């Protein structure tokens, strides 16, 4: 894609008009950190968008080739900093895969609790920040209010609120403290009624629907061609969730759990039953508006909102299972554990899509090569495709609906 101004100038009403190149970012308020978009605009109409990356590059992969796997765990926190627990989990699983290390049952349920709570926290930020992108501030703070409570729980579990380093190869750094399970149940009980409020404030809001429905429509084919994953892919109607479709080492973590892949049924045009009876009778999910087209910003947002409900279901089941499970929380591997010669690759379903880690070892305790496959990188790559011919105000709406975190893209 070229960004040079080389078009022949157009004469309109005796005035020479020209397309304008605008830098959106890296200090722009709605580019989710340090994304830089170069827009080519004709008035309000955007004809071309080119994302530029690299403003948050911290050489995480190279650092990983100089540290032992456990030492590198804190660096995974800083990839998708809004879902640090899920990043920890991906790395822990791939190291365990190479070591062929199996977890005690209790550790498995603990990981489900923690990673699904991480998913709730991450989707809450995604929802709130999307509201910000569309110009409303309050949902952001409502979302952060709930997220704070999750962070409080995480803080009690591991001592940190953002960069947890809690789930490590071998299990976790410690067991959940006494009383944590009940506090988590209390949180879920008070959090459930908040979800319809978010729906009322955003999903069902006429202005919100006007801003998102039918905007940035991505067909299933486009989504697959660009390698989109996670809610972005499922928002286009592709039923693909690694918790079902992934590798056995990952899916066995969710064995015995009841939950749905959130994707629109192509025949009925409906999303799976959100099992609202568990939430009480007076709650109802918003209808899909007439304006919405499968694969647009509204659907991507809706998928995220419904995934929060599924995550709550998972956490509730996991809390019961955790309490009755045998074994311990999973002792971490030694800091300088020797890795067997070979390589391992595993993808997990992080909140923003498939987060894959690749590990090559020559038999040393320090890996020879570490590689992270970022979901947001692929999700972002579709931006220029979606934004072509839209209005300027749609660009934040589309980029926001992809819910990118620059820390994960640049690593």
């Amino acid at each position, binding site marked *: 894609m070229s960004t040079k101004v080389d078009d022949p100038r157009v004469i309109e009403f005796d005035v020479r008009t020209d397309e304008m190149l*605008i830098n959106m970012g890296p200090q722009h308020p709605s580019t989710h950190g340090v994304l830089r978009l170069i827009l080519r605009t004709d008035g309000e109409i955007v004809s071309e968008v080119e994302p530029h990356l690299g403003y948050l590059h911290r050489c995480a992969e190279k650092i990983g080739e100089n540290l032992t796997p456990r030492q590198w765990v804190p660096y995974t926190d800083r990839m998708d900093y809004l879902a640090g627990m899920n990043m920890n989990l991906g790395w822990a699983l791939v190291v365990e895969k190479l070591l062929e290390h199996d977890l005690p049952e209790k550790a498995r349920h603990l990981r489900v609790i923690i990673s699904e709570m991480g998913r709730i926290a991450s989707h809450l930020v995604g929802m709130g920040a999307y509201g910000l992108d569309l*110009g409303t501030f309050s949902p952001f*703070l409502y979302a952060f209010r709930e997220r704070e409570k999750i962070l409080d729980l995480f803080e009690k579990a591991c001592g940190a609120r953002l960069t947890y380093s809690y789930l490590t190869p071998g299990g976790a750094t410690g067991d959940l403290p006494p009383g944590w399970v009940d506090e988590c149940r209390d949180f879920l009980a008070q959090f459930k009624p908040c979800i319809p409020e978010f729906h009322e404030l955003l999903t069902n809001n006429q*202005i919100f629907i*006007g*801003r998102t429905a039918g905007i940035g429509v991505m067909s299933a084919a486009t989504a697959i061609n660009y390698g989109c994953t996670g809610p972005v892919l499922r928002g286009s109607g592709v039923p693909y969730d690694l918790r079902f479709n992934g590798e056995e080492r990952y899916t066995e973590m969710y064995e015995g759990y009841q939950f749905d892949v959130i994707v629109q049924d192509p025949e009925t045009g409906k999303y799976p039953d959100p099992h609202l009876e568990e939430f009480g009778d007076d709650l109802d999910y918003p209808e899909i508006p007439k304006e919405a087209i499968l694969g647009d910003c509204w659907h991507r947002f809706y998928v995220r909102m419904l995934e929060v409900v599924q995550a709550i279901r998972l956490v509730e089941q996991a809390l019961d299972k955790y309490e009755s499970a045998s074994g311990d929380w999973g002792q971490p591997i030694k800091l300088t554990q020797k890795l067997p010669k070979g390589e391992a690759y595993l993808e997990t379903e992080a909140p923003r899509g498939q987060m894959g880690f690749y590990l090559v070892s020559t038999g040393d305790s320090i890996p020879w090569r570490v590689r992270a496959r970022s979901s947001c990188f692929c999700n972002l790559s579709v931006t220029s495709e979606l934004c072509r011919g839209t209005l300027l*105000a749609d660009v934040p709406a589309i980029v926001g609906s992809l819910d990118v975190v620059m820390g994960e893209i640049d690593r």
Partner: protein
Amino acid sequence: MIGSLVSTGASTVTEFISQNIFGLDDPNWFMYLLCGVIAAVLVLHVIAVGALFFIWAERKIAGRIQDRLGPTRVGGKFGWLQTLADGVKLIAKEDFIPRDADAPLFKIAPYIAFAASFAAFLALPFADGAVAHHVNTAVFFVLAVLGLEVFGVILAGYASGSKWSLFGAMREAAQVVSYEVPLGMCVVIPVFVAGTMNLTTIGEMQAGWFNNWLVFHDPFTFIAAIVYFTCATASVNRAPFDLAEAESELVAGFHTEYSGLRWSFFFMAEYGSMFLVSALASILFFGGWHPPIPIDIWILEAFADPDLVAAGPLKDAVPSLVTFLVMLIGIATLVAKSVIGVVVMMWVRWTFPRLRIDQVMATCLKYCVPIAAVCFVGSMTWETLDLPSMNTINRYEIHEDWSEDLAVSTVGEDGVDPEWPEDENDDESSEVMDGEEAPIEEDSVAVQNGLSLQEGE
């Protein structure tokens, strides 16, 4: 009965000061200028203190809406000095002008916006008699001057030398110009129903119980009031129509490059305009300075001198102190009504997402303009056919009175140009301002209290 309450409001704050503070019924040019300056300073403080209050209120309301506390530290319990602290910070900031900016225009733009917003307050009556300058066509004046505010924004956007600012300015231009059309249409409805462009008269015509408010005149004025509020929100650039400063799209829109005091002038202008359009809505539709329950009339009736009641308007039959009290009640009522309007705007801002530019235009051209046009026609039909109305004031009678007044004044006073009928009652003030000798009239009660100068029958 209520018809006789209506005074066509002739006195201004300037005259009030000269008469009640300096005790001059006919001040010379110097004293008049002095009183005018005092009046101007008073009005300036309304906007300045108002902006101070509203910025604090906005933060506090936003905080409460968002489950936060808002400011709590500065100035005691409720953080009510927060704006002052913000102001000190802004004053202490560097006066920064970007290299690419057009410096003179860049400097002058915030003052144009602020001056336009402030100047519109000149003709805005806060109560009968509490108006800085008495303008017969006050509605027209306020709208015209308020429309000038957009110049400041466009200049700011153009002179900033930033593409984002230019975007903001162009959006503002398109949006404000479009919304002036339905806004004007909605404003014209009460003007026609009341038969005058004089805001004081329009306000006085809604005396009594709240069913006399023009919003309850007929179903069309009711709808027009809602449309007016929507258009007013758009024309003062408040969310969900704040496209000119859409922070998620245009960084900060037209004031991206502004900082410090210059930036704060834009804010003062914005809050001033918000208050202004809300006050205008109160006067045009929601009874102006008359409380929903006619407390003011009850007070007047309680103190009225029975001998004078039959002779003229109720206000002329009470001691001037009571009139003054009623005026204060009126000011408080109008401010309260306007604050409610502003708070609703804030409430909307902190609840809704922002519209897109094409949706803003569609709202204006596809919904507001046709609805306003239908309301206009409907309301005129209603008034012309004299269909049943909740309003109990018979404005027809008042109109007829005016035509009689007009006839009298044309015959009675040679050389005096009887522009508009209600202006006949304004002859004293206008002639004082013109520096001419006022023709000596018969002693009327109006001169005694100096508030309501309408003559008797």
